[in-house]
């Protein structure tokens, strides 16, 4: 009870971590996977990217995004080969290149985090006095990182038992990947008792070769410059075989202790506590290799004072606590109380946090400024779009009629209003498929979508009259469908059913009503929606795409004909197919970022704008708030391992927390007083009745 005197009553944390450098963060649902071969969503990356490290990372403070070595000793050297395995010069034309080989080198002396799996003798027998609560109670060990660990992880990606989400994609690129996974299936059937680590190590993958302990090479089909971006994702983080071996112990499996639960990495932190129903705790990894805070950054970064910690050894904090917080309201309130260090801004708390100055600049409200809160904004490298199914009879197809219908809809769908209502203005209306910050994006007048906008010292949406004219030209005079004599009925397929969806769907209907088209919303569940998309029976839908890596190929491939979802099972959900576009895409995808590439991209974007398979929607802007004691926050949309750069001023936090959380007792006393007052007449009546009955 003594602790209560100096700590606020409403402090949601139990341990007194006053002086320690701890980051308080949260998660809203249990991450499905912590195995780097399986994890593929941002909430999973928020944790595992701090634990597992791939070969390369994106520079924290430089824009445009730039890769730099992380576990690698240097950037890779790429050499090209023709069909007959003869080396080719780097200038060889794309068509001749049959294979590219990436030669990769690893920093010497890197060690894994302390982990019981490196105690080989613990693999079979665990000490009998161990209570199976924390694996860190077992004797720990470590080992130096070698090339085999990377190769082992690539084998794990290929292993059908792992079910890696990128296995299908990588099978198209890495030589021998597919054969390896087939062989593993056969092996597993033949020797069902064979343990995973032994099974994977017993075979070789043809395209992946170990040269020595610190060098290895990967061979991919054709020329695939984006491959290096994949190498910077946690999928390609090294994995020691001992980990698989250790976790195959049946006792651990029955206690739900697995590699998917307790990672084994080389990163700045390790997962010390994992209770995804309550909290997950990362602790500083004592074996972390020497990495220092960047000493250079772009202008914006140095202007914001982000270079103060330059040259300090990373990580800058000792502990990260992620607490479970499912609902946004408690999260926001706890952020304001100082119990979370950083927060996004939901559309509902926007007006409380952000205000615009008279000339439209974004700033914080005075309340926020008084609290010492800082704001970061960035346009995300993602797109939220409204797609037409190009296979549909009414809205799809490439005839003039269908094109005009889509163009008319493009004009009436007022995305500026959408952004202002549902995003509080946090978004940029998209002009084409490529978001700002990705090569190929053109700003200003040259970049506008001429189908929907004109330029008059800024974007101006074309008037409704033009949409009506286009609609009439498409054969729907005043929106009447000649086939039925009634207003044209279009269908919108969605699995959207949250509390906000009602207003969103109402808004959508309102947009179509402007040109007298009736929009029928076909709400359905996740399964049915996905199935409709796969079978191509949807008519219109909303979807989003988040960049995997900062290359225009990662966006343009969403419209590439051979990725059509209901034909080839790819990611082209609109099933858009345009021969000219496809040819340009194939040409563009292997090019470096040169002016010629820009020219091709502009051509592709213009073709797609005319065909209008999507209403390009908008690119959301990410706003985030952080308290004064939370330093070095900088929006970097590609890097996932940002936690190690963050610095905390625990003293300042303590002061603020105590200031903001002074308990107020008087309403409690007042409530008791009122209750007493209410009970008094009750007592008096009671006495009267008692007396009356006594008579």
């Amino acid at each position, binding site marked *: 009870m003594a602790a209560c005197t100096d700590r*606020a*009553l*409403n*402090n*949601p*944390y139990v341990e007194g971590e006053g002086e320690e450098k701890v980051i308080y963060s949260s998660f809203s*649902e249990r991450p*499905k996977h912590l195995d780097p071969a399986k994890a*593929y*969503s941002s909430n999973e990356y928020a944790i595992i990217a701090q634990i597992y490290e791939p070969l390369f990372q994106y520079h924290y403070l430089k824009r445009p995004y730039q890769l730099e070595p992380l576990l690698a000793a240097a950037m890779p050297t790429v050499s090209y080969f023709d069909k007959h395995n003869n080396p080719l010069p780097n200038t060889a034309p794309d068509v001749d290149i049959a294979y590219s080989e990436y030669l990769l080198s690893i920093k010497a002396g890197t060690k894994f985090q302390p982990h019981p799996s490196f105690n080989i003798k613990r693999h079979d027998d665990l000490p009998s006095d161990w209570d199976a609560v924390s694996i860190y109670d077992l004797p720990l060990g470590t080992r130096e990182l070698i090339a085999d660990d990377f190769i082992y992880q690539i084998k794990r990606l290929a292993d*059908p*038992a792992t*079910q890696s*989400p*990128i*296995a*299908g*994609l990588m099978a198209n690129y890495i030589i021998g990947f597919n054969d390896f996974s087939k062989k593993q299936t056969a092996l597993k059937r033949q020797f069902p008792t064979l343990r995973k680590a032994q099974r994977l190590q017993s075979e070789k993958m043809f395209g992946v070769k170990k040269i020595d302990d610190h060098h290895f090479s990967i061979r991919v089909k054709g020329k695939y410059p984006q491959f290096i971006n994949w190498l910077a994702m946690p999928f390609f983080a090294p994995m020691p075989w001992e980990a698989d071996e250790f976790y195959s112990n049946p006792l651990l*499996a*029955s*206690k*739900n202790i*697995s590699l*998917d639960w307790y990672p084994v990495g080389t990163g700045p932190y390790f997962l010390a506590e994992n*209770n995804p*129903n*309550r909290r997950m705790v990362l602790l500083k990894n004592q074996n972390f290799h020497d990495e220092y805070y960047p000493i250079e950054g772009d202008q914006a970064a140095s202007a914001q004072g982000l270079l103060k910690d330059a040259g300090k050894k990373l990580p800058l904090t000792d502990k990260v606590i992620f*607490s*479970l*917080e*499912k*609902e946004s*309201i*408690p999260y926001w*309130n*706890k952020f*304001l*109380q100082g*119990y979370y260090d950083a927060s996004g801004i939901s559309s509902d708390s926007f007006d409380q946090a952000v205000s615009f100055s008279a000339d439209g600049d974004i700033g914080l409200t005075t309340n926020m400024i008084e609290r010492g809160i800082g704001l970061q904004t960035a346009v995300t490298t993602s797109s939220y779009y409204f797609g037409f199914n190009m296979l549909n009879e009414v809205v799809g197809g490439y005839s003039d009629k269908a094109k005009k219908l889509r163009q008319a809809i493009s004009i009436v769908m007022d995305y500026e209003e959408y952004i202002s209502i549902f995003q509080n203005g946090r978004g940029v209306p998209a002009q084409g498929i490529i978001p700002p910050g990705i090569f190929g994006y053109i700003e200003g007048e040259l970049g506008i979508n001429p189908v929907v906008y004109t330029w008059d010292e800024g974007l101006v949406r074309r008037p409704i009259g033009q949409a009506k004219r286009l609609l009439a030209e498409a054969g729907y005079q005043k929106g009447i469908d000649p086939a039925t004599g009634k207003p044209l009925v279009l269908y919108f397929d969605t699995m959207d059913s949250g509390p906000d969806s009602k207003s969103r769907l109402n808004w959508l209907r309102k947009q179509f009503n402007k040109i007298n088209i009736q929009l029928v919303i076909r709400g359905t*569940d*996740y*399964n049915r929606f*996905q*199935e409709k998309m796969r079978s191509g029976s949807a008519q219109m839908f909303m979807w989003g795409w988040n960049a995997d890596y900062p290359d225009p190929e990662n966006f343009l491939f969403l419209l590439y004909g051979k990725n059509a979802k209901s034909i080839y*099972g790819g*990611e082209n959900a609109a099933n858009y197919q345009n021969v000219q576009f496809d040819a340009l895409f194939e040409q563009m995808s292997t090019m470096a970022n040169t002016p010629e590439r820009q020219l091709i991209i502009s051509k592709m974007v213009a073709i797609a704008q005319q065909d209008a398979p999507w209403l390009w929607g908008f690119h959301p802007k990410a706003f985030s708030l952080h308290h004064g004691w939370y330093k070095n926050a900088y929006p970097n949309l590609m890097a996932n391992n940002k936690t190690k750069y963050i610095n905390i001023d625990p003293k300042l936090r303590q002061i603020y927390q105590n200031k903001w*959380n*002074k*308990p*107020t*007792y008087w*309403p*409690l006393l007042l409530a008791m007083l009122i209750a007493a007052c209410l009970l008094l*007449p*009750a007592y008096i*009546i*009671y006495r009267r*009745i*008692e007396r009356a*009955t006594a008579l």
Partner: protein
Amino acid sequence: MINYIIRRLFYVVPVLLGVNILTFVLFFVVNTPDDMARMQLGDKHVTQEAVDNWKQQRGYHLPLLWNEQEEGLQKASNTIFFKKSVGLFVFDLGISDNGRDIVADITQRMWPSLAIAIPSLIFGVLANITFALLLIFYRSSVLEFAGLFLCITLMSISGLFYIIAGQYFIGKLLALTPISGYAPGIDAFKFILLPVFIGVVGGLGSGARWYRTLFLEEAAKDYVRTAKAKGLSDLQVLFRHVLKNTMIPILTGIVVILPLLFMGSLITESFFGIPGLGSYTIDAISSQDFAIVRSMVFLGSFLYIIGLLMTDISYTLVDPRVRLD
């Protein structure tokens, strides 16, 4: 009595079988094994091969209820239904579809749920009975009408509102308790204060009204009039006779929910960040994890039946007129 209990225990088996079949049918009418696989594998870059592979490994590649390709008994046994149901009857809940041991998960998550549910129930029933007794006591006075009005007001407010308002006033404005969070052991105290308080207040309206009806029912009986005529005071009648005789319906209400308490409450737990079982079933339904859904439904129905049995036994204890045979 003993015979009755034994008969009831045998009776558990068909109920559980029925529950199991119904759950199975409901689940697979809506989801196919393919859907489950896609849900688990995620959105991006999923191939049919990966889906088939997933089903093969989890045993969802078999036919649902009837395997045409097998011989004899195998036709029924080599199916998803049979393979997934047998273990349940010996309480081997198995591994969830995302690879976690279900029993371990449940035992870990039931304690926080109980930490909220038990105090809420105890204080809730106490508050409800007190309030209802007061209402009876002041029958046909302004106070009764005000109390009823309060009851109905409390009833007409959505549960979500209580939680949001409670967090706002007590956690944020007054800074008396944490807004949300949980800690095991004795530290849990400060975290459960607010949810328990909100649970009691939120249930007061309908609870007190319900108990009031029961009391009124009893108070209208002849013996109460007789007792009053004999000269017992209202208070004595109320406590000695009315309260005691109303125990049967009160017990029916309480005992049957006792075993289910550990299932937790979905909304309370999600708003307060309590690591309980409340959202376990819902999450499993939305992530289409059949293994968890069937285990939880099975467990729930088992406990429910135990609750019913306990109710019946408690009848005989409270009211000797009821015979179990």
